[in-house]
C-alpha cells in the first residue's frame, strides 16, 4: 500500500485554483494546432471538454456510442444545477457551497477540488445563459432558483424538470459549432474498447464502429474520459441502458487507479419496480421533495388495507400517517440528503410498512402543497371564500407549472394520477461517486489519460448532493480540464503526430479483436441479459443500500461464479463485423462483472458508514450512519494487478484544513 499524491497546489484554499492556473504550463496557440486530443463521451463533461478544447485550438476527436452526441445520459438529469450566485440573497457563498458539498459528501472528498468546483460554479451559469440555455425565470426577467436536499439556501438553477437536457443541448451546440469548423471530428456510434499506452503515456484508443463492426485505431497526444458512471452494474438503475463502465474500466486495467468504487448513490425518489421484466428504473426529480411530503401508514392494519385495495391512501387521516422524515429529521424534514432519505425509506419498508404489492414503496404526497399553493393563488386573485375544490384546482395549476412534465411522466408509467393520489416512490441506484482516481489536474495515474465528470471520483465524496452532478460535469469540461490538460501537453509540442500503426496500437487492436471473437465464438446457451440480471441481483441485495461483512464476502464469491459462468455459457448472436447490439452489451457486461467484484471488495474494506456507503456494523444507536474518521479518512484507489481479487489498494489521505470534521446531522 502506498500513498497517492494529489498534486494539490499549496496556499490558502481560496487562492489555490487561481495560483495554479497562473503557474501551470500553457501551450501556445500555434502549437495547440499540432496537438490531438481524444475525448470519449459527449455528455456534460465530455461534450463541454471537447468543445472547449477545440475552441482553444486543439484537434479534437470525440467518441460516443449513441447516434448523436445530444443523447448522452446527462440529458436525463431533471432537477437543476447548483451555483453559488447568491441571487436570492439568502447568504449563499462559494464557501457555503463548498461546505455543503463536503458535508453532503460525508467528508470523503478532496477539499481543494470541491472548493474549485464551488468557485467556478457561478461561471457555468453565465456561460450557459450566453449559450442560450433557457433557464426558468421570474416575472421580472431574472433567473429563478429552487432548493434541493441537504442545503439551507436556494441555489439551484433549473429549466423545469429538464435541466440536464437544456445544459447538454448547450454543450452540444458548442460542440456543433466546432464540428462545423472542423475542429472536432465526431465519431458517433463508436465505442471505446481499449486504451492504448505508448511509452507509459495514454496515446490513443481502440474503438469499434458500431455500425460496421470495424475496429479502428485512433491516436492522440492525450485521452479524456468523460464516459459517465457505472450504476448499471446493478442492472436496474436510473442510468440509460447503454451507460457502461467499459471506457473507465479499460483505462483501469491499463494502470489508472479506480477510486472508491463502493460509493453509490441510491436516489430516494424513483418509481417503484413493477415486475421482473423491468429493464430500467425511472427517477422522479428530487425537486419534488420541495413540495411533496413522504409518508407511510402508522399502523400495519392500514398497510394491509392499502395493499389489498380496501383503503386508498387519501382515506387515511393525518394522524394515521407517519411522515417519518419530518419525524426523524425535524430541521431538514423531507429535504434531507439523498442517502439519508433512501435509507429511511428502506428502514420503513423493511419494517413492513411498504405500501405496494412488493412492499417496496412509500408515498410522496402533494396534497398539502396543492392546498397551500391554491390558497396563495386564491389570495392573489382576491377570491373571497373560495371553495375547497376551487383551491385544489388552483393549487394543481401551480404544481403543474412547477412539475408538470414529471407528473405527466409518472402518470404515463403508472397509470395513476399524482394530482389526485399520492405518488409511490422507492430508492434506486442513480449515480456513482466513485470512479477513476484523478489528481488536481484531473489526470489519472496513467499520464495523459484524464477523467472528467461522473467518470472520476473527486468531488462528491461518499454522497453527492442534488443538482451537483451537472455542476461538476460542466465545471470539469468547460473550466478545469481545458486549463489543466495544458500542463501535460506542454511537453508534447515537439512530439508530432502520434502514429496509429505502432506495435502498441496493433497489439491492442489484436487483443480487442480476440476478446470480441471469443464472445461471439462462445456459443453458449444464455443471453447476456441473463448474466447481467444475476449480477444486478447480487449487487442490489448484498452491495446495495445496506452492506455487511459476511454479505459482501458472499457477494464477491457469487460474482466470481457468475463471471466464470458468463465466459462458459454466454450466447452472443450474430457476428463481430456488423451492427450487433448484443455484442455491445456483452463487452459491457464482461467489464461490469469485474468491476462488481472490486466494488464489493472496496465496500468490504471500508468498515465504516459514510454517505451512500452504509455498513450495518457501523451505525449509531438510532440507526444513523457512523463514520470512522480515524481509520478511514482516505480515498481508496485500487490498482489492477490482473484480477479484481488481486487489486492493490493505494490510499490518498484526505485532510481537512478548512472544514471541521463533524458527524453529519440533519436533525
Amino acid at each position, binding site marked *: 500500500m502506498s500513498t497517492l499524491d494529489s498534486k494539490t497546489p499549496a496556499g490558502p484554499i481560496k487562492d489555490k485554483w487561481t495560483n495554479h492556473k497562473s503557474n501551470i504550463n500553457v501551450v501556445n496557440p500555434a502549437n495547440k494546432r499540432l496537438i490531438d486530443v481524444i475525448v470519449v463521451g459527449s455528455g456534460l463533461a465530455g461534450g*463541454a471538454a471537447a*468543445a*472547449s478544447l477545440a*475552441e482553444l485550438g486543439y484537434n479534437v476527436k470525440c467518441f460516443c456510442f*449513441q*447516434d*448523436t*452526441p*445530444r*443523447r448522452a445520459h446527462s*440529458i*436525463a438529469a431533471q432537477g437543476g444545477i447548483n451555483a453559488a*450566485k447568491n441571487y436570492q440573497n439568502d447568504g449563499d457563498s462559494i464557501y457555503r457551497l463548498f461546505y455543503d458539498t463536503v458535508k453532503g459528501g460525508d467528508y470523503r472528498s478532496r477539499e481543494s477540488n470541491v472548493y474549485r468546483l464551488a468557485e467556478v460554479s457561478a*461561471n*457555468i451559469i*453565465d*456561460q450557459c*445563459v*450566453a*449559450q*442560450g440555455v*433557457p433557464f*426558468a*425565470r*421570474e*416575472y421580472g*426577467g431574472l*433567473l429563478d432558483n429552487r432548493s434541493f436536499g441537504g442545503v439551507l439556501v436556494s441555489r439551484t438553477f433549473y*429549466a423545469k424538470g429538464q435541466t440536464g*437536457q437544456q445544459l447538454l*443541448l448547450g454543450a452540444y*451546440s458548442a460542440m*456543433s*459549432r466546432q*464540428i*462545423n469548423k472542423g475542429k472536432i471530428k*465526431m465519431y*458517433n456510434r463508436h465505442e471505446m474498447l481499449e486504451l492504448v499506452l505508448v511509452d507509459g503515456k495514454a496515446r490513443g484508443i481502440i474503438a469499434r464502429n458500431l*455500425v460496421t463492426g470495424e475496429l479502428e485505431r485512433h491516436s492522440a497526444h492525450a485521452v479524456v474520459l468523460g464516459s459517465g458512471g457505472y450504476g448499471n452494474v446493478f442492472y436496474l438503475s436510473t442510468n*440509460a*441502458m447503454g451507460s457502461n463502465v467499459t471506457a473507465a474500466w479499460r483505462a483501469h486495467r491499463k494502470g489508472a487507479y479506480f477510486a472508491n468504487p463502493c460509493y453509490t448513490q441510491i436516489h430516494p425518489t424513483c418509481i417503484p419496480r413493477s*415486475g421482473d*421484466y*423491468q*429493464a*430500467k428504473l425511472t427517477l422522479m426529480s428530487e425537486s419534488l421533495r420541495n413540495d411533496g411530503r413522504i409518508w407511510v401508514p402508522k399502523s400495519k392494519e392500514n398497510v394491509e388495507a392499502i395493499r389489498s385495495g380496501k383503503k386508498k391512501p387519501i382515506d387515511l387521516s393525518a394522524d394515521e400517517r407517519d411522515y417519518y422524515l419530518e419525524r426523524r429529521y425535524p430541521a431538514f424534514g423531507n429535504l434531507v440528503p439523498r442517502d439519508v432519505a433512501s435509507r429511511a425509506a428502506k428502514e420503513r419498508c423493511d419494517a413492513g410498512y411498504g405500501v405496494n404489492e412488493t412492499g417496496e414503496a412509500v408515498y410522496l404526497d402533494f396534497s398539502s402543497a396543492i392546498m397551500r399553493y391554491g390558497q396563495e393563488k386564491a389570495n392573489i386573485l382576491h377570491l373571497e371564500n373560495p371553495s375547497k375544490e376551487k383551491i385544489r384546482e388552483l393549487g394543481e395549476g401551480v404544481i403543474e407549472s412547477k412539475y408538470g412534465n414529471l407528473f405527466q*411522466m409518472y402518470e*404515463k*408509467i403508472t*397509470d395513476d394520477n399524482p394530482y389526485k393520489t399520492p405518488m409511490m416512490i422507492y430508492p434506486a441506484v442513480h449515480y456513482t461517486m466513485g470512479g477513476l482516481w484523478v489528481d488536481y489536474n484531473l489526470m489519472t495515474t496513467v499520464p495523459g489519460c484524464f477523467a472528467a465528470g461522473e467518470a472520476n471520483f473527486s468531488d462528491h465524496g461518499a454522497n453527492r448532493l442534488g443538482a451537483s452532478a451537472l455542476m461538476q460535469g460542466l465545471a470539469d469540461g*468547460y473550466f478545469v480540464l481545458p486549463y489543466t490538460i495544458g500542463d501535460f501537453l506542454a511537453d508534447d509540442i515537439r512530439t508530432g503526430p502520434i502514429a496509429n500503426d505502432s506495435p502498441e496500437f496493433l497489439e491492442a487492436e489484436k487483443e480487442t479483436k480476440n476478446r470480441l471473437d471469443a464472445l461471439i465464438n462462445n456459443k453458449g446457451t444464455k*443471453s447476456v*441479459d441473463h448474466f447481467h440480471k444475476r449480477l444486478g441481483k447480487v449487487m442490489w441485495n448484498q452491495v446495495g443500500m445496506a452492506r455487511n461483512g459476511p454479505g459482501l464476502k458472499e457477494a464477491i464469491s457469487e460474482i466470481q461464479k457468475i463471471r466464470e459462468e458468463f465466459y462458459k455459457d454466454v*450466447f452472443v*448472436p*450474430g457476428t463481430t463485423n*456488423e*451492427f450487433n*447490439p*448484443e455484442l455491445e452489451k456483452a463487452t459491457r457486461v464482461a467489464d461490469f462483472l469485474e468491476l462488481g467484484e472490486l466494488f464489493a471488495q472496496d465496500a468490504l474494506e471500508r468498515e465504516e458508514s459514510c454517505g451512500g456507503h452504509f455498513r450495518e456494523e457501523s451505525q449509531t444507536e438510532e440507526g444513523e450512519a457512523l463514520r470512522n474518521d480515524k481509520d478511514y479518512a482516505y480515498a481508496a484507489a485500487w490498482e489492477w494487478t490482473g484480477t479484481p481479487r488481486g487489486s492493490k489498494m493505494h490510499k490518498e489521505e484526505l485532510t481537512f484544513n478548512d472544514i471541521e470534521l463533524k458527524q453529519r446531522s440533519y436533525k
Partner: protein
Amino acid sequence: MNLTLKIWRQKEAKASGSMETYKVSEISEHMSFLEMMDVLNEQLINEGKEPIAFDHDCREGICGSCSMYINGEPHGPDRGVTTCQLHMRKFKDGDTIHIEPWRAASFPVIKDLVVDRSAFDRIIQSGGYVSVNTSGNSQDANAIPIPKEDADNAFDAATCIGCGACVAACKNSSAMLFVSAKVSQLALLPQGQVERKERVLSMVDQMDTEGFGNCSNTGACEIECPKGISLDNIARMNRELLSAKI
C-alpha cells in the same frame, strides 16, 4: 396478453428488407413497449435467432433514441410519449402490432428498426447555436433580464429531443418542426439576436440539402411530437426566413 407482431427486418443498409411476423405471449399490461421488445428479443436469442435491432437508451422519454413507427404512427397510439414511455396497456390481448422504422430519404435504415438521423446533427451544425466561446468570461447571467414569457416559449421550443417523429409522421418527411424549434428558441432569446438572420438561412438551407420534404401544414408533426412542440414554431421560422431574405 398475447400479441402478433409484424416487424420490419433488414440486415443492413444496402439489403432489402421485409415485414416478418412474430408472436409473443404473457405480456403484462404494465410493461413498456420496449420491455415487450426485450421479451421478444430474449425469446429470439433463446431460439438461436438474431434479435431485432432498435435504438433505445434512456428509456424515460428524454434522450430521443427510440424511434418506432407503431401501428401507423410514430411512437405508437399514445400522445405525448416516446416509444419507451408507451405502455402495453394501450393494446389489447390478441392485437396485431405493426412496427416499422422511420421512413425518410434523409433517415436511411441502418438495420431493422435503426435509422441514421445524422442529418439532424448536420442541420444544427450549420448554425443552431450561439457563437460564444465557453470561456466563462461572458457577462453575468442576470445582466440581461428576459421576459418570462419569452424564456418560457424558448424553453418550450428547446425541449425538442431530436427523435425525428415529426419527420416520420409528416407525409412529406419534412423536418420543419425540428428545425423551427431550434430557430425559435434562439430567435426568442436576446443571446440569439446577433446571428439571427444567418442562422435561419443556413439551417433551412441545410435542411433542404439533406432532402427533407416541404411543409404542407398538415399538423401531423405537432400531434405526434412526444414533447408537444407547437406549430407556432414553424410559423415563426417562416417569418424569420422571410425577414432574413428580404
